[in-house]
């Protein structure tokens, strides 16, 4: 990999696009083998994900959550930590948010409920990331292992809490009661009727703000400098006076809080109640987004939108084409992770050779 030092335009644009096209090509091949027309299917997918305004609205709704989980994984990656636990952190954060809402939703106005919900979510998300961070910093327990375990613990814990304590008396559905209307994130369709009955809400703008803050903090602040130094060379970071264990704990807290904020969109922006497994893999998608977006704010945004589009488009595709199962989008997602993550530098030698020949 070090043999070809490619220019920035090649690594930042040409290679990801080539990788993405390769993934879609394989997906098209599989669609063909399933007995459907790849061209038509891709048309449906694209139309339903980005062209149709309601579809686009759904795409951006999913993307809002993914931006938060993608940011959560990315910021930990900057410090050299692989936070696999965004899933569990977001799940547990849903409890923080819900407890806050169940307590205050009948007494406080919307403008107070939204920040309170966000704080509840961020706090619980951070709490769920604290122990893995602490164990990594002080005991050297690998954060990959502990965050995976914490995903399972979160799953079991939430199951108990929801079923035992939060299901209202007489209800069968494993979910909390619905919040009052004051606890609902304002939806964008009230300003843009063309979006129809879709859940896209102001969380999308919160996600954009989070991206900007992340970008500024990581690349322009001295804290971000220390963060990246820790990730790239721990010895040099120690030499530079960085308090490594404090940095690890801090960044895990932030990572957990960001993952937690993803639940604001899912719950306050859409369902308005806490349900079992509401995260639905958004935390794991965050890993793919962080890898594909190379932890860069613009990259995270584009990848989040792409994954949102795949879910939305893939869902509609499976409705229209009976040979294509609804799991197809998971398959395409897997292909994208394979090509953009594991085989990231697949085309690097070829591009290097091309550039060399030009010269």
């Amino acid at each position, binding site marked *: 990999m070090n043999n070809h030092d490619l220019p920035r335009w090649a690594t930042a644009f040409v290679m990801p696009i080539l990788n993405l096209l390769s993934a879609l090509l394989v997906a098209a091949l599989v669609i063909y083998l399933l007995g459907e027309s790849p061209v038509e299917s891709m048309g449906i997918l694209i139309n339903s994900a980005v062209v149709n305004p309601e579809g686009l609205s759904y795409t951006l709704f999913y993307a809002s959550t993914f931006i938060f989980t993608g940011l959560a994984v990315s910021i930990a990656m900057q410090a050299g930590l692989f936070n696999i636990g965004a899933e569990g952190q977001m799940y547990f954060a849903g409890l923080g948010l819900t407890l806050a809402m169940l307590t205050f939703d009948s007494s406080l106005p919307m403008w107070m409920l939204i920040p309170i919900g966000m704080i509840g979510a961020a706090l619980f998300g951070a709490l769920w990331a604290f122990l893995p961070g602490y164990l990594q910093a002080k005991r050297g327990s690998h954060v990959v292992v502990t965050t995976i375990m914490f995903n399972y613990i979160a799953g079991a814990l939430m199951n108990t809490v929801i079923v035992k304590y939060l299901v209202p008396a007489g209800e069968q559905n494993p979910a909390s009661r619905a919040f009052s209307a004051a606890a609902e994130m304002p939806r964008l369709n009230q300003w843009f009727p063309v979006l129809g009955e879709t859940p896209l809400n102001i969380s999308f703008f919160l996600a954009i703000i989070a991206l900007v803050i992340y970008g500024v903090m990581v690349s322009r*602040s001295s804290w971000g*400098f*220390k963060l990246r130094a820790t990730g*790239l060379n721990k010895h*040099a*970071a120690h*030499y530079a*006076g*960085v308090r490594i264990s404090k940095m690890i704990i801090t960044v895990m807290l932030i990572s957990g809080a960001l993952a937690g904020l993803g639940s604001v969109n899912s719950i306050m922006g859409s369902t308005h109640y806490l349900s079992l497994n509401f995260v639905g893999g958004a935390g794991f998608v965050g890993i793919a987004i962080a890898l594909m977006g190379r932890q860069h704010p613009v990259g995270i945004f584009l990848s989040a939108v792409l994954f949102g589009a795949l879910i939305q488009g893939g869902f509609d595709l499976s409705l229209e084409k009976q040979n294509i199962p609804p799991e197809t989008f998971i398959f395409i997602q897997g292909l994208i992770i394979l090509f953009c993550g594991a085989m990231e530098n697949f085309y690097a030698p070829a591009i290097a050779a091309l550039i060399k020949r030009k010269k």
Partner: protein
Amino acid sequence: MQPAVEFRGISKHFGAVKANTDVNFTIAKGSIHGLVGENGAGKSTLMSILYGYYRADGGEILLDGQARNIRNSQEAITLGIGMVHQHFMLVENMTVLDNVMLGSEGGFQLKSKRATVEAQLREICTRYRLDVDPLAVIHDLSVGAQQRVEILKQIYRSANILILDEPTAVLTAQETESLFEILRLFKEQGKTIILITHKLQEILDITDTVTVMRGGRVIGAVATAGTTKEDLANMMVGRPIENNLPRKPYNPGAPVMQIENLQLVDDQQVKLLADIGFTLRAGEIVAIAGVSGNGQSELMEILSGMRLPTSGKLDFLGKALPFAGRSDADGLPRTFRELGIAHIPEDRLRDGVVKAFSVMHNTILGYQDKLKNRWGLFDFKAIAARCAELMKNFDVRPNNHDLRIGLLSGGNQQKVVIAREVLAQPKLMLVGQPTRGVDIGTIESIHTQLLALRDSGVAILLVSVELEEVRALADRILVMCGGRITGELKIEEFDTTRIGLLMGGMHKS
């Protein structure tokens, strides 16, 4: 004279960089041929072409008079070319025997082959007096012994032409001498050796002929007997090298660092530092001489705040250094830096720079919190201006602060580190191995900078394993061995033999 290797018009370009331009010279069979030149002179590229890592853009290589097209290192090995890299290519947790067999196991079952190879290795070891146990595990071996394993590997693969890249960089004086013994035996057996080195004394000691390269070209190919160190240095750098750099008369000021009874014991209860005590004054350079691994690194780590001592009294400018009540050294280097202690770490790539950062980002490493505004954000315009000035003053090349520092040569990386630490205007400068892996021209400029710092009244503690460097810079010399200070000399008393004895632990002589 029968030629073993002949380079004819070799050229190699990497993009706009001309690594080799029309290289022509011949290496005689059964000789030891030195290849010298500054970093970036094209030695490594040329050897990589010979060993099949790169393919030349033009020209040809003749082996034993026949033109050969060497396409990869497998072919080079088949043609009898062996290479001992500066960084050993050994599997640490395997035995010598397994390392030698690796890549030529010859079948699915190892057992039968093992016995034959072991016998062969023992025979080779006796013939070349290599003194390596084939059944020893690599990580139990000293650096010198590991290098002998690399040589053993090459002989076993019947190499007739042996390339050694900076083989003595990691060796002690004694190990170097025994390596040279082996090389001489090699020569007697009719094998050809190509020795790449920075150290001109070694060229004079052991080679028959020497080729000097500069800027990708051959500047001169001479018989060693007819040349001197000065001639070679001048050819390498392209200008005369000043050996005695100007310095103000020795006039030490107030004590800057006072150390008494410093002890360091590691987790396994091994004593790394014992009874260290000395005083360092303003405006003097105290050099710590010694074979590496005798406690110098640990001492520097403690004085820079990177590591806690077990016990001891350490005063900086009359005040105790803030070690008390700490359970780890996390964040301590920052406090020390604020007190006025700057540190040029001996392992530049491990501690001194973040390789993936740009040159500019590396110029603020350690000082990142001083350069932020009240929002915690950097003013990159000011930082770039600061960086530009620093790169100009220290002549860092290439003059492009956006380049990743990992792409710079070792000498230029070191200039960035030194420039950064000098700019902090410290009271005490800790300097570890400032010229390791740095070429002659740059050594001179680094020495000049350090002497200027001394003349301006900064106290400097220098750790170096190069006695020539110690002689060039020091006002006083402390010798360390086994974690203790075994002797102290003034620079006027400089005596290689006596220092050598002290380095070996024979004190009070």
